[in-house]
């Protein structure tokens, strides 16, 4: 447990406070056990974990869609415990973007889908129209109002799904694998959209398997595997690679590579997480080394490289794997 709940102010109302949340599906699958964490306003948090870890299940608890007797009072949003009877009042506080956009685009027209939330919130028509236009613009779909959802491409559907939540202007936005199935360009555009939201001060929770995107998106990472097995800043969590690998996860490619570089004599304490971080790290290291940097092969380089690489080769240790 590398959990770190220290950084959180206990005074002001947290954006999200989950305390000892448990959930078992009716068929007996225990999906969540003793989950506790807090997220401050304005934080942007990545929620990671292997397939079946309960990430999506947790998301559905954040606005009370899923709930059980044992979950009463376990989730507080903006200081108020969730009332499962008032789920329809939640969208002002927290908006959820589901993984499959086809589940979110249920109206015949895209504009209707984007207007769905605001209308339910009782906002008046002209204002709704403005918000529809604005939300579509923000996800790069300006002018798509009268498009039919089933004719959109995969990437467009993803962005449309986000627009349907943006239009309600919630304080917290939670997303389930927003970058899955996107081509690299659409993925980057989506990351940019999320970054804009972050800069605007929204509280973000992003479920993702895409570890290379995390450093760009999140200040903090929570690792879930039925329960919270790690919680800390992005750097802290990624530093504990043993725990991550044990949970079937990975650290960003660049970080793995800098571990290799260390074996070649690269002096660094804090491994960079992304290419941009790496550039900074390189520059600093070289400048500290008075303009130069030496890499070399010493006696243990190859054993060290072997050890570092072996760490991330899940399949070598996986019991149920062929060969």
């Amino acid at each position, binding site marked *: 447990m590398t959990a770190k709940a220290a950084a959180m102010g206990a005074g002001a109302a947290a954006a999200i406070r989950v305390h000892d949340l448990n959930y078992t599906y009716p068929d007996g699958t225990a999906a969540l056990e003793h989950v506790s964490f807090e997220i401050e306003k304005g934080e942007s948090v990545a929620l990671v974990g292997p397939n079946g870890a309960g990430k999506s299940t947790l998301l559905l608890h954040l606005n009370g869609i899923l709930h059980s007797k044992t979950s009463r009072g376990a989730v507080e949003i903006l200081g108020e415990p969730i009332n499962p009877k008032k789920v329809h009042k939640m969208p002002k506080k927290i908006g959820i973007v589901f993984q499959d956009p*086809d589940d979110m685009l249920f109206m015949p027209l895209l504009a209707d889908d984007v207007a769905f939330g605001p209308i339910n919130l009782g906002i008046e028509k002209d204002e709704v129209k403005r918000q529809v236009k604005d939300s579509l613009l923000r996800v790069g779909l300006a002018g798509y109002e009268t498009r039919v959802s089933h004719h959109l491409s995969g990437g467009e559907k993803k962005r449309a799904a986000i627009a349907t939540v943006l239009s309600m202007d919630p304080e917290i936005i939670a997303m389930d694998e927003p970058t899955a199935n996107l081509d690299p360009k659409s993925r980057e555009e989506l990351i940019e959209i999320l970054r804009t939201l972050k800069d605007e001060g929204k509280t973000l929770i992003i479920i993702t398997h895409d570890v290379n995107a995390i450093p760009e998106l999140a200040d903090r990472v929570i690792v879930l595997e039925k329960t919270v097995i790690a919680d800390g800043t992005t750097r802290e969590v990624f530093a504990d690679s043993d725990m991550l690998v044990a949970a079937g996860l990975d650290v960003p490619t660049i970080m793995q590579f800098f571990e290799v570089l260390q074996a070649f004599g690269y002096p660094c304490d804090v491994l960079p997480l992304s290419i941009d971080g790496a550039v900074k790290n390189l520059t600093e290291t070289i400048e500290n080394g008075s303009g130069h940097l030496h890499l070399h092969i010493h006696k243990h380089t190859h054993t060290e490289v072997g050890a570092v690489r072996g760490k991330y080769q899940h399949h070598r240790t996986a019991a149920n794997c062929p060969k």
Partner: protein
Amino acid sequence: MISEIDRYAGISSPIHRWDPRFRLISIFALIFSVMLLYNLQLVMIGMIFAIILTCISKIPLSFVLSRMKLVFIFVIPFFIIIPFTVIGDGVEIASFGGITLSYRGIEYVKFAAMIVLKALTAVMLIFPMVGTSRMDITIKALEGLHMPNKLVQMFAFTYRYIFVLDDEFTRMDRSLTSRGFKRQGNLYTLTTISKAIAMLFVNSYERADRVFYAMRSKGYSGTVATLHEFHTRWQDWVNTAVVVGFAVLLQVAATSDTFSAARGFL
């Protein structure tokens, strides 16, 4: 697989510009009126009116005919069977296995023709009725006509998910084919397809849950409203007067002596 009736909703014609609420009601009334007729001449007049409406709507005739072909296959048996098979006296032509072919004369040909014409008229009128605006607008018009909100929601969501599930089944069907499955008329095919459909149901049941969750998380509390607004102009009233007027006229004519009712033959 799902051909879209609203493929030509984007073009412009007087029918397209007609307020969908009025259009639905008027043409619906017209269809009812024609179906109540039992006189071949009047049915033909109704049919001609339907053709005129369809022409005004500028929906390509080839599109209309391609749909009517299907209906033709449904109703043509009446046309062939009825004149020959009515029990009772008539000119016996042949008989096989209990079914006697006997020719009952021109009146029955007329009766059968009337049935076929009525069916075709109804199908043809569907085009100006719902083919002239996008399906989603048509569904909103149902709401404008004060159909219960739950039912309107069911139309809207069902219409949306038909396409999603159709894609789903198409993909499943392709995966069966790509593993050597060939549809034949045997039990194996039947049980295999049944299982594929069962899977479709299980998946859609789970999707239904997710859709409901998504709706709830967007504030759904039972009713659905949209931004769409219908605007009524005087032209809508004129169109309505013409079509509904014609429907009433047909009924008035039917009660007059000039057009004897054909029902007496039965």
